[in-house]
C-alpha cells in the first residue's frame, strides 16, 4: 500500500534535516513495538547532540547494545547508559540527566505517570536539551512531544531464504504533532547500518482507517 500512496520525491535527504525533531529544547516521541527500528532511530538522533557533550540513554530493560549507538554516530566516549528499572526513580533520574546533558534518550516504563512526563518535557524546554522518549508500552500523553514518530512498518533487505545477511532497513514512519504543523505525514527512512539515516520518500498521509505499509 505504501507504493500506492508514494509521492514523487527528489534525492534522499538526511533524516535530521528532513525531520526537525531533535533540536535543543524539543521533546521527540518514538512510538512502536520492539523490532520497528525506533531504538536505532533514537540513537542516531543523539549523534548530533553528542558533538556538544556526553549524551545519555535511560535503559529501563537493561537491553541496550552500545555498538548500535556507535554505528549510528555516537562516539563511545560520549555515550552514558543509565540503567533504571524502578518506575518511581525513572522520572528523577531522567530529570537529573536533563539538568546537565545536551540530549537524553529515555525508554519510558509502562505506567509512567503523565504528570512526571509533562514535567520532564518542561524541563527539557527550560534546559534546551533534546529529550527523546520511547514508551515501552502504549503512547505518550497527547501534546507532550513536539514531534511523534510512529513506526508503521519495517522492511529488510539483504537476507534471503537461508542466504545473505541483513544490510538495509526501510522504515515507514508516521510523523505527527507540532513538528509537522499538526498535519500527519508518512515518511520512509532508509537505514543502511551507517551513521546516516536518509528520508527516501515522503508518502502522502493515508486516508483515515487505512494504514500505509
Amino acid at each position, binding site marked *: 500500500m505504501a507504493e500506492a500512496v508514494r509521492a514523487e520525491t527528489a534525492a534522499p535527504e538526511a533524516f535530521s534535516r528532513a525531520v526537525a525533531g531533535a533540536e535543543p529544547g524539543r521533546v521527540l516521541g518514538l512510538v512502536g513495538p520492539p523490532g*520497528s527500528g525506533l531504538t536505532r532511530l533514537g540513537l542516531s538522533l543523539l549523534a548530533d547532540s553528542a558533538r556538544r557533550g556526553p549524551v545519555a540513554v535511560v535503559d529501563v530493560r537493561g*537491553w541496550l547494545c552500545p555498538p548500535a549507538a556507535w554505528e549510528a554516530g555516537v562516539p563511545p566516549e560520549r555515550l552514558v*547508559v543509565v540503567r533504571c528499572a524502578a518506575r518511581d526513580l525513572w522520572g528523577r533520574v531522567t530529570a537529573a540527566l536533563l539538568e546537565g546533558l545536551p540530549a537524553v534518550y529515555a525508554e519510558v516504563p509502562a505506567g509512567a505517570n503523565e504528570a512526571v512526563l509533562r514535567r520532564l518535557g518542561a524541563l527539557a524546554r527550560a534546559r534546551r536539551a533534546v529529550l527523546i522518549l520511547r514508551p515501552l508500552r502504549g503512547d505518550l500523553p497527547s501534546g507532550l512531544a513536539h514531534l511523534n514518530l510512529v513506526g508503521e512498518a519495517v522492511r529488510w533487505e539483504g537476507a*534471503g531464504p*537461508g542466504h545473505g545477511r541483513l544490510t538495509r532497513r526501510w522504515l515507514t514512519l508516521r510523523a505527527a504533532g507540532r513538528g509537522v504543523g499538526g498535519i500527519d505525514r508518512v515518511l520512509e527512512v532508509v537505514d543502511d547500518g551507517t551513521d546516516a539515516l536518509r528520508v527516501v520518500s515522503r508518502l502522502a498521509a493515508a486516508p483515515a482507517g487505512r494504514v500505509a505499509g
Partner: protein
Amino acid sequence: MWFPDWRLRRPDASPDEPCQVVGDGVVLAANSLARAAGVAVGMRRRQAETLCPAVATLAADSGAEAAAFEAVAVAVEDLVPRVEVVAPGLLFVPVAGAVGYYGGEGPLVALVAEAVEAAGGPGARLGLAHGPFAARLAAESTAAGPAIVADTRAFLASLEVAVLGREEMAATLRWLGITTLGALAALPREAVASRFGPAGLEAHRLASGEDRRVQPRPLPEDLVVEERFDPPLEDLEQAAFAARSLAHRLVEGLGPWGGAPYRVVVEAESASGVLRSRTWRSADPFGEAEVAERVRWQLRAWVESGGVPGGLAVLRLAPADRSDRGRQLHLGDDAASELEAARALARAQALVGPEAVLAARPQGGRRPGERVLWHRWGDPAPAPERDPRAPWPGHLPGPSPALVPPEPRLLEVEWDEGSPERVRLGSRWEPVLAWAGPWRHTRRWWAGEGAADRYQVVTSAGAFLFEVRDGACYLAGVYD
C-alpha cells in the same frame, strides 16, 4: 566611540528648550534641560511629559540617525579599517594593528577624535580598552577627553554589577554580597556557571576582562546569503523588502548551527560596480528583525550619500561571531559545561547507584554482547581484554542489534527441514519472511560445550537474532 546624544542631533531638536526623543512610547534620549526636569532614558513618555510639561517630543527615526552617522563611520574607517557599527552613535574600532601603525594608543585616539569631531561634531566620547564591553564602559565613564584603559581587569573591578545589564542577576549578586565586577571575577567560574547557567558564565567572562571570544568557531562560507537584482533596485523600499527576506534566509541558514551572529557584514554592489561594505555589531545576538533593520538603515545611509550609483545590483549578508545562545555549550569548549554534565551524571549515580551508570568501550568478540566492555562511569576505562581490531572469524556482520537481552531468552521457533518457518513473539506466531545464517560459533568443545548457530530472521514485526545451541533456540538480539 560613543555619542551619548546622537538621537538629539537633528534639525528639529532645539538645544535651548527641553527636548526628548521617543520610540514605542519610551524615552530614548533627552537633552540636558529635560534631564534636569527629571526626564530619564527608559521612562514612559506620559511620565516624562508629566514631569516636564514643556518638553518637546520628537519621534525617533533610526533610519535617519543611521544615515547621518554613516559620515562618522566613513571618517573613522579612513583611519582604521573594519569599523563595526552597533547603533547610530556607537561604533567599535579594532585598534590592535592601528596602534602600531600610528605610533601608540595616544596618537591614534587623538587622530580618531579629530576625525570624529570633523565629521560628527563635538560631544563624542572615546574609550579604549580590551574588548567591546570594557571599551563601551570606558567611553561612558569619561565626560571629557578620551579614556584609555591600561589595565582592563582593574578598570572593571571597581564597577557595579549593574553594568552587566542583567538586572535580575545583579539583584541576586547584590543579595549575595557581590556588588562589583571585581568581586564577581574573584568567584570560581564553575560556581558562577553552576548558579546562573550560561548567562552567569558570560557575566563572569566580562567581569574578568575576557569579553566574548571573537569568532568562537569558524562559520562555513555557504552561510553567506546574497540576492542579485536585475534590473538594479532604485527604490529604497524595494531594497528594504529584499533585505527582510535576506535576513530571514541568513537566520534560517544559521538555525542548524545553533545560535545567531553577533556581527553581520552588509555588502552592497551598485550597478556601476561600486562595492560597499559595513559591519554591524550587537551586544546581543542578532535576530531576523534586527538584521533586517540594520540592513535597511545601512542601505538608506548609502543611498542618501549617493553610495550606490546606478541602483543596487547585489546585496550580500555574511554572519560572523556566532553566539553560544540557543545551544548547549561545547563540552570541549568549556570546563563549566563539562562540570554540569559531570554533576548531572553524579546525581544520577546517587539515585540509581554507581553500578547502573555505565560507559562502554569497544572490544573484540563474536557475539554482540561480547563486543562491549562496560565500566562504571567516572572510573578510568579498562584496557580491552580482546582486541577489537582483530578479525574475529564467525562474528556477526553489521548492523548490530540495538537491543540484546542480558541473558539469552528461550524462544519458540518452528522449523521445516532446517529452515525456520514461524516464530512465536508474545502470544502470536509470526511467519519468517527471510532468514540468513547460520554463523557458527564454536565454543569450548574440550569443556563439553557444543557449537552455537546464530540466525538473522526477518518477520513482519522486524528482525531478530536467534541462537540455537544444545537443541534449544534463544533470542540473542532485536534489530530495533
